[in-house]
């Protein structure tokens, strides 16, 4: 047998060592819950600062565009307020929305400082964290739809599991018809479309039907427009549709996001735990 070159053997061993440790590390942060959280948190702290600075600078270049988007949204909300006031027959500022006693949802606005869309499991970072009242497992929405679910939070930053993540599942329904299913991303790299599953095949579905959040997961309020149906298909042997949904939200351009605080979540969670222990 020929003697192997010493350099190759040592270099090969080093590469093998690093490869195996790399696999172990990947397994650790992928399949162990607490380690995964700590990992994302740490990455948050490190990259949050850098990304925040970069986003600060980038922000100047799109000020005009962002301004007009926010103005439009403001106008839309104002119009809704006036309509509501008209119905109740009072001035907008006298409207009694009973926010103090019955408020279920609150929104916290935040800037998106980091965003990935090209991976299999994508994440975003927001420039607000625990200090602003954000915790794990809260919904995040944008101007035109759903963005994701908060995954790890530290004092000043939040990592959000994007809707373009294989673990994200969002409860959604067909507008005006009420049938609900779960909205997932099928990892095909195309960030314009998602797939709505679990709608029974006897439901009449038309292309162009609108899809909105169902509100069943208590992460998101019901009725947030998500997208419209552009393709339908029943996989062979299946009793449910596989619907192709075109998103209203352009995830490649988001700069702002709102974290949804649901004041009923603790109560619902404890109820759920009670049911589970029965």
């Amino acid at each position, binding site marked *: 047998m020929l003697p192997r070159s010493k350099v190759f*053997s040592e270099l*090969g*061993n080093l590469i*093998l*060592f690093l490869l*195996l*440790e790399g*696999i*172990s*590390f*990947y*397994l*650790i942060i*992928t*399949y*162990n819950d*607490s*380690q995964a959280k*700590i*990992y994302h948190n*740490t990455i948050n702290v490190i990259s949050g600062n850098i990304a925040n600075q970069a986003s600060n600078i980038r922000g100047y270049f799109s000020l005009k565009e962002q301004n007009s988007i926010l103005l439009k949204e403001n106008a839309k909300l104002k119009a809704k307020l006036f309509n509501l006031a008209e119905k109740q027959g009072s001035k907008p500022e006298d409207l009694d929305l009973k926010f103090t006693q019955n408020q279920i949802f609150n929104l916290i606005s935040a800037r998106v400082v980091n965003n990935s869309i090209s991976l299999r499991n994508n994440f975003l970072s927001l420039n607000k964290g625990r200090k602003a009242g954000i915790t794990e497992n809260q919904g995040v929405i944008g101007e035109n739809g759903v963005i994701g679910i908060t995954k790890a939070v530290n004092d000043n930053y939040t990592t959000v599991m994007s809707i373009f993540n294989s673990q994200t599942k969002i409860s959604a329904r067909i507008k005006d018809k009420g049938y609900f299913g779960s909205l997932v991303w099928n990892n095909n790299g195309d960030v314009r479309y998602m797939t709505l599953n679990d709608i029974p095949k006897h439901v009449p579905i038309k292309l162009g039907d609108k899809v909105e959040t169902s509100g069943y997961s208590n992460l998101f309020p019901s009725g947030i427009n998500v997208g419209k149906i552009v393709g339908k298909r029943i996989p062979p042997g299946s009793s449910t549709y596989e619907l192709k949904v075109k998103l209203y939200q352009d995830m490649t351009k988001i700069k702002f996001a709102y974290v949804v605080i649901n004041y009923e979540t603790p109560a619902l969670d404890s109820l759920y735990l009670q049911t589970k222990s029965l």
Partner: protein
Amino acid sequence: MNLALLNNGNRFIILLLLQIIVFSQARLGPLGPYYIDIIVFPLAYLLLPFRTPRELQFLLAFGIGLIVDISMQSPGLHAGASVFTIAVRPIILRLLEPRGGYDKLHSPTLQRFKWPWFASFISILSFVHILFYFSMEVFTPLFLGAILIKTLLSWFVSTLFIFLIVIILNPLD
């Protein structure tokens, strides 16, 4: 050669079974959060013959670690610790090198070495494995105290059990 293969193969299987069926079932916790894990399977890869190719050492350590991980639902923890420990083994062997060096054909067993040598060899490397394991389990240097306490407790108990196994089974080359 065939005998070494047979001995090591048996060792891997017996230690895997012992680890999974017996020792992994008992997580001793007399001290509240500072529980003790009894980890004996590193003995299997630590006793590999000196002449075993490095690549094979890495792969075997990774493999046995991964199997234990799957049974303990801790993917990556033992696999990473095993690969790290087998990587450290030559350094420890160099530190403990007896006068006259090692015989390439031998394994680091009691058959070839005296108790003081064998005890230091096993206890140092099982400490490395267990320290790496708990570092990855706690996963943040913020709880360095917890890592060290768990490591020391588990290391002490695990090493005792490893010696017990060695005395009972008397592994050969």
